[in-house]
């Protein structure tokens, strides 16, 4: 089988980036970005996860189908979150009864 063998250099570079990301997210937790605290943490986590998926999990070197499957998982995750949270987030817009506010 002729598969792409990822050069070791890349593995170590990704590893360094992941460790740096961990340090960054701990540092960021002690800063106050106001409303964006959670967003910053999630963005860092998403970037770290993307690095793992693309390089450690070889998606960058895989055919289109794997790209599609890998993305599908995350797209459906977003569907689950967005369409469920749509309900509690908009309950107060039209207080039909008086639901407990979020």
């Amino acid at each position, binding site marked *: *089988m002729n*598969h792409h*063998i*990822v050069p*070791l250099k890349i*593995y*170590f570079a990704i*590893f360094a980036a*992941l*460790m740096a990301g*961990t340090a960054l*997210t*701990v540092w960021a*937790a*002690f*800063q*106050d970005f106001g409303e964006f*605290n*959670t967003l910053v*943490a*999630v963005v*860092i*986590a998403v970037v*770290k*996860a993307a690095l*793992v*998926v693309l*390089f*450690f*999990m*070889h998606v960058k070197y*895989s055919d289109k*189908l*794997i790209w599609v*499957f*890998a993305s*599908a*998982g*995350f797209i*459906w*995750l977003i569907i*689950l*979150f967005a369409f*469920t*949270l749509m309900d*509690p*987030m908009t309950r107060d817009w039209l207080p039909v009864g008086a639901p407990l506010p*979020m």
Partner: protein
Amino acid sequence: MAESRNPLAHHFDSLEQQYAAAKLGMWSFLITEVMMFGGLFLGYILYRCRFPEVFAQGSHHLDIKLGAFNTAVLIVSSLTMALAVHAAQEGRKQATLTYLFFTLMLGLTFLGVKVIEYSDKYQHHLIPGARFLWSEGDAGPPQLFYSYYFCMTGLHAIHMVVGAGLLLWLMALTARNRFSPAYYTPIEMVGLYWHFVDIVWIFLFPLLYLIGRH
């Protein structure tokens, strides 16, 4: 085909087809894993939006040092796992074994730290249920935080245990010369699984340990 040494199963035409099928199957499985953890994250997000202060307080009872240490442990283990796959691709049996062993040890280290954290929660009466004690007001929402803490890290830990078992199995097969540069599919598949478990923790760490530390 455990008995025969020929890794090509009867219903495939080529090793290439078999490898592609295995890889696609593994990714399909990982999608189901994403959705399964997704259900947990969903409830966590909802309750965290509803009880932001309580979740921050709950988070402050978690040990950020142990959490960060474990994050680093898992990232190193992901690297050694990637190196194990790399070594297998090049047919270096001894190196493959060594990297798999390191990965296993790091995984066990993670689980050990988890045991320390869990027993700490037990001693401080932070296990949800009848024994739960909370001095800072209504004990309801903090129980939700800890329920999710235990469910999420618990499910993750179960995945680590399964992963450790898979690593042992791979080491046994490697030692028996079952793999070659032409056929190392199981190592790569377990690698995908291991990296996925790492990714889950990459999200769990900031979401559970790092709320409102400023």
